[in-house]
């Protein structure tokens, strides 16, 4: 596939669509969109950056780029702490969707909100906190305030209640997408012009699910209708510590299986190991030895259950049940003596429940840069993953930071090794790649899924899923005939 490098004539065409103020090839401005961190280290400076505001502008841009075979990378905001799909070769056009930031509608009766791609977590939170305080803003948990609701969802991110109801994408009911072939499509019940966006499966097969995880590789999503849930006043966090990931895994699964019971109350179930705390501070300004963390009451591994309920009675019931189950679990634990309830100060509870938050950000404070290399595993295998990966991180000289969270009541685990390193040294990039290759080879054999395979990893996964990839590619060809959209982490094409 060959692409055209945009030239002045192409810039003029873009200016003709959006206006002089919103299209540029200014080298300083294009360089400012670079990002080599958090989710990926491969990024290059785009040739042109455009800031459209209207659907029709996007349609014209995509049609033009399709005709001219110019690559396009859409960016809605910050994508979970960094530009997860930054421009890669062959460069081309970067669409900064930050001007599309309308909160179009919040419907409390039908329980959805309609947003544009540039709406950030911070904006939606502030707006709903003020005007719809009884409803939880449908923002991602763990993503910083400047990340967007849309970007997180199409990257298969988390919601505030993912551990109970499933990934954020499951909360998206209908959407509007502009495909590079020039078509503007509304999905689900919204396909009918007179209908509300109230049902994902309206009118036929759910096309929206095809877009989940697409990371902007199929078209530009310009609106989404997202479910909203009541925001109960009764909330708390329960934490149990242990000294190994297997006890963490197994206790959490036992609680998660209480479906139609307490596990529906546990909206965010996440944990990990003590280096999660250590690596948030500069490497030379924090003890590395576990003895210090033990002294301040941090277990080697732990699990948090953030619990929501409509009444105090329900909350007490749920948290007491978790405690009782943890006590009971000791009979089956690898090391029962290490299973301890962690007592949290009210300020610590408030801090853990704060959303949106900046918890994922300070891992750059350790040295100068970090990467999340994220995997999905079946929940009963996350401890195996954690054990394997932390050993590998130590082998390559990285602190063994491991974060694990439950999706849909432990049907899946999202396992996030946080690789902290000094990004000034190119040798560290090589070490990260080596770590990634070695662990990917092992992980794929176990049937685990790489969340965002890096370009040098793609082929390891996809050659094994050839038929699936064939159909993804066929759909992409249908909507993006000249393959101009960023390939995303799906390597399409």
């Amino acid at each position, binding site marked *: 596939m060959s692409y055209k490098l945009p030239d002045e004539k192409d810039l003029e065409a873009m200016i003709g669509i959006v206006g002089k103020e919103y299209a*540029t090839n*200014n*080298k*300083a*401005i294009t*360089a*400012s*969109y*670079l*990002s080599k*961190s*958090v989710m990926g280290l491969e990024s290059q*400076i785009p040739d042109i*950056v455009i*800031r459209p505001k209207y659907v029709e502008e996007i349609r014209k841009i995509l049609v033009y780029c399709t005709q001219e075979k110019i690559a396009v990378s859409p960016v809605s*905001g*910050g994508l979970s*702490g*960094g*530009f997860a799909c930054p421009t890669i070769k062959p460069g081309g056009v970067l669409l*900064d969707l*930050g*001007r599309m930031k309308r909160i179009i509608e919040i419907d409390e009766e039908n329980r959805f909100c309609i947003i544009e791609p540039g709406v950030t977590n*911070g*904006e939606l*939170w*502030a*707006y709903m*906190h*003020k005007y719809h305080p009884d409803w939880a803003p449908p923002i991602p948990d763990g993503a*910083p*305030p*400047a*990340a967007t609701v849309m970007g997180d969802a199409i990257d298969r991110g988390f919601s505030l209640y993912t551990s109970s109801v499933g990934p954020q994408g499951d909360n998206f009911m209908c959407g509007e997408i502009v495909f590079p072939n020039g078509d503007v499509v509304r999905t689900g019940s919204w396909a009918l012009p007179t209908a509300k966006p109230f049902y994902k499966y309206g009118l036929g097969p759910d096309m929206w699910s095809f877009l989940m995880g697409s990371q902007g590789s199929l078209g530009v999503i310009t609106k989404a209708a997202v479910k909203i849930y009541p925001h109960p006043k009764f909330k708390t966090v329960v934490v149990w510590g242990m000294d190994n990931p297997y006890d963490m895994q197994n206790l959490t699964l036992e609680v998660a299986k209480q479906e139609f019971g307490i596990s529906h109350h546990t909206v965010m179930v996440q944990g990990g190991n003590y280096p999660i*705390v250590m690596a*948030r*501070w*500069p490497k030379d*300004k*924090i*003890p590395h030895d576990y003895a210090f963390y033990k002294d301040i009451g941090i277990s080697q591994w732990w699990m948090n259950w953030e619990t929501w309920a409509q009444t105090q009675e329900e909350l007490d019931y749920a948290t007491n049940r978790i405690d009782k189950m943890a006590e009971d679990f000791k009979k089956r634990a690898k090391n029962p003596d290490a299973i301890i309830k962690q007592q949290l100060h009210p300020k610590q509870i408030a801090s853990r429940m*704060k*959303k*949106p*938050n*900046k918890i*994922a*950000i*300070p891992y*750059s*404070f350790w040295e*100068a*840069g*970090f990467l999340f290399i994220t995997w999905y595993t079946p929940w009963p295998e996350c401890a195996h993953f954690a054990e394997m990966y932390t050993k590998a991180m130590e082998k390559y000289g990285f602190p063994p930071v491991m974060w694990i969270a439950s999706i849909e009541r432990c049907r899946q685990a999202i396992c996030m090794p946080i690789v902290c390193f*000094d*990004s*000034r040294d190119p040798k560290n990039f090589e070490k990260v790649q080596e770590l990634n290759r070695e662990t990917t080879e092992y992980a794929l054999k176990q049937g685990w899924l790489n969340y965002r395979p890096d370009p040098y990893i793609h082929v390891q996964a996809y050659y094994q899923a050839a038929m699936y990839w064939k159909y993804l590619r066929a759909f992409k060809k249908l909507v993006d005939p000249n393959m101009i959209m960023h390939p995303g982490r799906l390597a399409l094409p």
Partner: protein
Amino acid sequence: MAKTGMKRLEELEKDIYKCIHCKACRSAYSGEPDREGIGEFAGKQGTVLYEGIVDACPAGIEYGWEAFWNAGKMWIARSILNGDLEFNEEVRDVILPCITCGQCSAQCENKIRTVDIIEALRAACMESGVPMIDKHELVDNLVKERNNPYGGAAAERLKWAKDAGLEKFINNKDAKIAYYVGCTASYRQVEVAIATAKLFEQLGMDFTLVDDEVCCGSPFFRIGAVGTAQELMRKNLEAFKNVKMVYFSCAGCYRTFTIDYPKWMSEDEKLPFKTQHAFELVARLIQQEKIKFKPNKELKGKVVTYHDPCHTGRHFAVDMEQEMIEKSSNLMIESRKIRDAIEEWYEVPRIILRKLEEDVGIEFKEMYRIKLNSMCCGAGGGVRAGYPEFSIKTASLRCDEANAVGADILTTECPFCWRNLSDANEQYEHGMVVMGVLQMITEYNLLDILQNPNEKDFLLPSIRENMEEILKEKPKK
């Protein structure tokens, strides 16, 4: 510290590489989504929802492109260091419209020294041969000819003192304390200079005004003209070398002497005097119960709000934090002490305002974005000279925020902030009075001395100097 922009940029490489482009730096209260605010307000510059997290980067708000927000500039710096981008006018025109207010630095969880990086970028840009913009070149020429960027005659720098009957303090050779006035108070907001000097006189301070005083160099450090800035620095160090304490009434000058000068002096040099802002003295005397204020019918019931100048507020807070981080051996344990120290620093002007409320009868009301999260007035970083429309619009944004709390009087403690806010107040008809706190005390004759302070009181150091002791203390609960 390195003495050229490019070397300084290289020294800051680790900070630059820490940036993960999370964009938390765009907003005030980026870590306080549930902060209760004052609701939506439709002001002269549009409607703002003052709740939770609110955008607060003036250049980003005005220009919109990623390059004008802080994270974009960090990646420009990285591209320069990597050789992916060269300095040219395009780069200059993107890195200059930044007020260097430091909001970004205050929000950054990775503690990146963003203001240092942007200033180093500017200096390196200039060193590479990219010409200054016309307006900056003008002020650079003016300061070289006249020792101030306003073009005022050098000989007239202390005219305000002579006109106000304060001549006896000019070149008062025996005094151990000096009052550094600064260019804005000397040539523009002379009310600040008069109010401060008269306050010192009323308190019985034996101080000197130094007629060899020249511009502190702040605008030139900010825009990257570090050669000019260092020349001015040398002149001031010479002019003030014989005093023990220098008081300031300008946040920018105070910051420049205290934070910038030591960075640009050689390794074995240190400031020959201590530094302090006049409001620190007033706050201390209130706490010692040596002064209070008289009731005043005209001010009684007036709603007064306070704008935290970036230079005395955020810049000092971030500088103190960086110094304490450097000294810390266990940052996880000591971070709370650092936060407490910063909170104590921000209380200094509020001690005065709350006392005014108690004694005079004003109603002190805080704006939404305050202290570490304060919204900039728009004047600094070379922007007022270089991009006056953007500068005044930013000041008007701030005036909107004061209008939102129903302020009759908008106070501050920096004549440059005062100038810009005052101009915006007038141009956009915000309908308030803008004045300095010390000006209010002097012009309304509010000072009531309960016990005459003495030289020892005047020579007590700033609370900033206590950092090592703060780290040794147990954290407050």
